[in-house]
């Protein structure tokens, strides 16, 4: 190894990040080259001084001042968000107003022009029969059979089973056969 190669790898050598073989070569060169050994010692001594500089501590009111700034930051953020929302609301309201005015304007503008009226088709229907109290012997059959059968088979048993009739006003009506 020559001195140039030693200097090129010196950073990794000091940081102990060299592979085993390279580390051995560097150490061997240190033993052989006085100039590189002095250089290595000078660097390491300087780094030792720097790394042992005392750490400075934040001032006593550092945390207080930071908390105050963070609080202001929150208020500012809320204020900006509120302003942005108000602005958006105002823009939306303006657009809606313009559209409404435009619609009203176009309606008024075209109101004089004759228009063909289009009516919905009329569908005639059979009038509903008048509902009168039930007096005839033709009842609206609203019946139930306790056996739970449908009307059609129930009618077959009309002779056999007792049946109660009710007319449309839901009053019990007498039916005589």
């Amino acid at each position, binding site marked *: 190894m020559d001195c140039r190669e030693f*200097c090129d790898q*010196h*950073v*990794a050598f*000091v*940081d102990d990040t060299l592979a085993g073989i390279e580390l051995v070569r560097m150490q061997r060169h240190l033993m052989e080259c006085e100039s590189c050994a002095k250089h290595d010692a*000078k*660097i390491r*001594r*300087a*780094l030792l*001084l*720097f*790394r042992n*500089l*005392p*750490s*400075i*501590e*934040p*001032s006593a009111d*550092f*945390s207080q*001042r*930071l908390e105050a*700034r*963070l609080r202001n*930051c929150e208020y500012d*953020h809320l204020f900006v968000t509120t302003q942005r929302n108000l602005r958006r609301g105002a823009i939306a309201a303006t657009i809606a107003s313009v559209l409404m005015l435009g619609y009203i304007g176009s309606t008024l503008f075209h109101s004089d022009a004759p228009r063909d009226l289009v009516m919905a088709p009329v569908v005639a229907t059979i009038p509903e029969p008048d509902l009168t109290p039930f007096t005839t012997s033709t009842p609206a059959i609203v019946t139930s059979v306790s056996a739970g059968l449908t009307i059609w088979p129930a009618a077959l048993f009309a002779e056999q089973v007792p049946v109660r009739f009710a007319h449309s006003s839901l009053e019990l009506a007498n039916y005589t056969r």
Partner: protein
Amino acid sequence: MTRYQTRLLNFVYRTIGDREKAEDLVQEVFIRVYRHLHRFDRSKKFSTWVYTIASNLAKNELRNRSRNPLVLFQTVQKNFQDEDRPLQFEDTTSRPDDMYRKRHLREIVEESVAKLPEHHRNVFILRELEGKSYEEIAEITDCNLGTVKSRLNRARNSFAEIIAPYVD
């Protein structure tokens, strides 16, 4: 916050050389972290992100200073006012001349670091004081690995040259 405030303060202070301003910048770092936390990519390392913000703020401060000679003068003047400098090596068992030498050495070391070019100083402090890996330094300073190693090598050589007369 507690975890990072001292480390960040030391990093920023060693970079810009002004303690009061360093505290302001560190607070600014925390404010920005608070504001932009939602943008943080959780697949990356949090400390790298925080140090990147701190490094950029320190760089901006140095850039502003170089443009404003009045600010630079005031900073230099303030740093030389003895009553503002806390005595770090308060040791009643040591002899007075030892204490003086220690304090003097500390000042020399700090001044020697301040003499390094800005981009060398940044890498030097991140590696020697903060113990960041080359990859982390590359990410924080936004340069490639080779550049980091090259700057670190030069920073170490320069620092050793500056401080050598005082320690021999």
